[in-house]
């Protein structure tokens, strides 16, 4: 007697359902995809008990004829593709012809559908994969489908469903993805009469505002990249709005939500060191690629995708991110909620965005590349700016301003006239008469001239922050993170040099270590030398420091080396892998001046000068902001000076 036999269709469908239908959310996803593929522009989803007892999806799409309505429930029945060529060029969300059959295998399904031009629609009721009823009915144009008692025939599955709140959360997330991906479609979602989502057709900007809020909108920068038949548009978040979870990361490929570790890594690296590894930048990105060049048929849920040219897309995303970031003023300005008055005001200080950015129309990408812009290569010019030089040494730096590239532009964007925005704006808070293209140096100069000759317009408060008057208001710099950024970049550069500079010591410093530390130092020795630490290892786990980096605080060398190793270990445990990067970051963090270190005016000037010749003066290697700006307009408003 043969022991291998063909499974009955109903059982095969149940097995397939295990892959396609995992929870109410996957039912919603499959059904809404069908609605979208049918051209629906109004899609409503109603659930009860988070979809465990009822999922109802209705659309105003093109509907089905009676014969199609029955066949739709059979496995591998689909209207979406018919030939191999179609499979190679998928234009629709679904195509495998599995979903309805799979859902019908594990639930009671009632489908009503009517095509335009027909008087009566069709009603099909399916239970356990069998058609129980087929009749004519009056209904709206389009299709509505009700899924009752999901998994009623598969108790094992039912048990694995989580609480209503959890299941519904997944559904909401899926609906949000659809809503972001298809702003021209209206979506509604409710559960047990609670409305979770209700968005009308709109532009993307309004859609984002509807799903999130204005603040989220402000947190985003336009993103655009194209080439080689690939177009990527959308928005990425400002670094200071990074989240601790990936929940606000959306990537859509040809209208389909996808998740790709590789591509999100591309974006993350585009931020370079604007944020730490535990932070996730929000983004909403739309990839348009010739369907022939991608394979979405990797997994039944289709959220995994294979590209023919992953590297190319990786590069586009990474460079596009850099470009988007460098095109924009990343210095957070501080504004206070307008309705607040009186005592609560200071407490209510919070980050927000420069007013001009907010006024910028959302969808437009800065047209006239803001005052000369940053070279699209996005690679920053290390050590460029000739601005911000102190007046004393009569160096030829000023000549360099013309060619200084990035540094100057960034400064202009930072401190120049914020009215550079591409369209007429209502930036009413702007000080009238501020001139475009004034460099920070010039601004400080003008402050100097106006006041005493010898004052540089820099003040240190609480031995922690540096305050400076700039043309558009007030700039506040956190001295520790500023120095950290400077040292970090110098350390990275220094490790690349074959033989970095190292101040030799008259009295070698002895560092007593335990075997583990000794081994670590031995392992890192080459890169430590790269940082400028000349190290001799002696018997008995003795480490002698004979040379130190030029830029560490004198006398702290041994302590800094030890702290550096501790910090390195910490990063290591956090799962970082790039040894040099970890070392550079550890070194920068430990060797930088601390909050509480008093600085002379000269030192402050040096610090700020060097800060603005780094490639990224706004955010420290850990992702904290370095510079904050308070617009004069904001101050005026606080003091009731605005009309």
């Amino acid at each position, binding site marked *: 007697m043969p022991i291998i036999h063909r499974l009955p269709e109903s059982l095969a469908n149940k097995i397939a359902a295990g892959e396609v239908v995992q929870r109410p959310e996957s039912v919603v996803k499959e059904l809404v995809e069908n609605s979208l593929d049918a051209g629906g522009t109004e899609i409503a989803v109603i659930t009860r008990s988070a979809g465990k007892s009822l999922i109802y999806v209705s659309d105003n799409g093109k509907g089905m004829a009676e014969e199609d309505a029955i066949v739709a429930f059979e496995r591998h029945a689909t209207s979406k593709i018919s030939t191999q060529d179609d499979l190679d060029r998928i234009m629709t969300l679904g195509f495998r012809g599995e979903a309805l059959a799979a859902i019908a295998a594990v639930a009671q399904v009632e489908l009503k559908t009517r095509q335009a031009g027909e008087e009566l629609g069709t009603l099909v009721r399916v239970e356990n994969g069998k058609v129980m009823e087929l009749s004519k009915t009056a209904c709206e144009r389009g299709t509505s489908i009700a899924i009752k008692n999901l998994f009623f025939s598969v108790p094992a599955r039912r048990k694995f469903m989580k609480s209503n709140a959890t299941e519904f959360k997944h559904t909401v997330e899926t609906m949000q993805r659809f809503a972001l991906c298809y702003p021209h479609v209206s979506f509604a979602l409710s559960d047990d009469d609670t409305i979770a989502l209700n968005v009308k057709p709109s532009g993307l900007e309004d859609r984002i505002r509807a799903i999130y809020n204005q603040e989220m909108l402000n947190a985003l920068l336009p993103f655009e990249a194209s080439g080689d038949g690939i177009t990527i548009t959308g928005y990425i978040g400002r670094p200071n709005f990074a989240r601790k979870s990936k929940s606000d990361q959306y990537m859509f490929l040809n209208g389909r939500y996808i998740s790709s570790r590789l591509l999100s890594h591309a974006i993350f690296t585009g931020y370079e060191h604007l944020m730490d590894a535990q932070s996730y930048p929000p983004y909403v990105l739309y990839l348009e690629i010739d369907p022939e060049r991608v394979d979405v048929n990797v997994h039944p849920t289709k959220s995994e995708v294979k590209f023919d040219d992953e590297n190319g897309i990786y590069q586009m995303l990474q460079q596009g991110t850099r470009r988007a970031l460098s095109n924009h003023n990343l210095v957070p300005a501080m504004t206070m909620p307008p309705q607040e008055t009186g005592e609560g005001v200071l407490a209510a200080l919070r980050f927000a965005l420069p007013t001009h950015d907010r006024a910028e129309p959302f969808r437009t990408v800065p047209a006239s590349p803001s005052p000369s812009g940053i070279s699209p290569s996005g690679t920053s010019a290390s050590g460029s700016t000739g601005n911000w030089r102190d007046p004393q040494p009569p160096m030829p730096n000023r000549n*360099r301003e013309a060619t200084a590239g990035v540094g100057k532009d960034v400064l202009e964007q930072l401190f120049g006239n914020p009215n550079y925005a591409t369209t007429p704006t209502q930036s009413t808070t702007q000080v009238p008469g501020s001139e475009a293209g004034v460099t920070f140096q010039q601004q400080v100069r003008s402050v100097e001239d106006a006041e005493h000759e010898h004052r540089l317009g820099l003040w240190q408060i609480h031995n922690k922050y540096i305050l400076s008057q700039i043309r558009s208001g007030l700039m506040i710099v956190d001295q520790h993170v500023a120095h950290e950024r400077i040292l970090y970049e110098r350390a990275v550069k220094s490790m690349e040099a074959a*033989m970095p*500079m190292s*101040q*030799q010591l*008259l*009295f070698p410093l002895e560092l007593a270590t335990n075997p583990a530390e000794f081994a670590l130092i031995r392992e890192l020795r080459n890169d430590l030398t790269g940082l400028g630490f000349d190290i001799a290892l002696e018997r008995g786990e003795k480490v002698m420091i004979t040379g130190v980096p030029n830029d560490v605080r*004198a*006398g702290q060398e041994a302590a800094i080396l030890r702290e550096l190793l501790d910090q390195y270990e910490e990063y290591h445990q956090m799962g970082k892998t790039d040894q040099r990067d970890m070392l550079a970051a550890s070194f920068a963090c430990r060797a930088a001046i601390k909050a509480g270190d008093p600085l002379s005016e000269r030192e402050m000037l040096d610090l700020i000068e*060097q800060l603005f010749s780094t490639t990224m003066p706004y955010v420290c290697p850990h992702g904290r902001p370095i510079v904050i700006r308070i617009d004069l307009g904001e101050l005026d408003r606080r003091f009731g000076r605005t009309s």
Partner: protein
Amino acid sequence: MKFTVPVKDLAQALGRISSAIPQRSPMPVLENVLLQLEGSMLSLTATDMDITMTTTLEVRGERNGALLLPARRLVDTVKALEMGEVTLDADLNSKRTLLNTSSGEYRLSGMDAAEFPQLAAFNPTITITLPSAKFGGMVDRTSFACSTDEFRPAMTGVLFQFRPNEIRSVATDGFRLVRVIDHEMQPQVSDNVDVIVPPKALQLVHKAFGAEQMTLEANSTHVRFTDGATTITARLIDETYPNYESVIPQANDKRMVIRRDDILGSVKRVSLYSNSQTRQVRLKLGGNALRIQAEDVDTGGEAFENVPCDYSETEMEIGFNSQFMREALDRIEADEVAFDFSTPLRPSLISPYGKSNGQEVLMLLMPVRLNS
């Protein structure tokens, strides 16, 4: 307490001690001056706990007593008074104090003298009389090289070594070292005495002392400098000084002799083009010429100068922190200086070349390893 004194005398005395008054102190009482009157002798005292400065002056005393007065206000007032006499009249119970001049009066309130920290009795084990100018010169040549690192306290001070027939002063911060040996000042001590003096005390001595001779007294915890009416007492740094003699190389065999003004001027100019953080300059030696170079990759600045010198050894390249070079050269009084090198990573020595004025000056600089 009541006395009358010419404004000029009081202003001078306050001026002498004013730099010993802490600007801001965790102990507010230290922002006062202690006035003590006994007969016709008024003494003024200021302290920051580590360094105490006292000066005395003759007044026409009427009523003895002691009182604390706010230092800033008192100094500023007396400095601004018109010439003539001023009478200070303090009620020791209420601490109300009146300053009377011919044109008006100034009222300020003081504090109980008992609140001022008690100064420990000072019993010197050695007493040395020194010519002020010469001693000042030694201080000047060494104290700049002190470390500011609180974790190596010994190196934050200047080491003085009193020997029967010489005085040495030494300072180092681990990157450079200065040793001055004076053979002319004869301390006439029977034993070797080593003390580490905080540089701030030495600066005060330098600033406040004008007489030709001064007295230095010391024991194991304190040092006291006296110049006529003024004494400065400082707590010594109670640490072991590193064995500096062992790091001074004895066999640096590559000698360069060069005019001091030439090399100092060149270093000053060229270093303007060095990196503002590292201040590093590169010295290239060979064929009786010295080339000093600097560059700053951050700004793209670059400069060099060629300076003639006497150097006939093998060619070599060595890097220094230009700040250290300038500070060392600035303090060598000689037309020509000698540099003694060994290898680019070993310490180099700088000393005056030619006749000396009884003081032997040696500066040691640790090089910076150059990036190739």
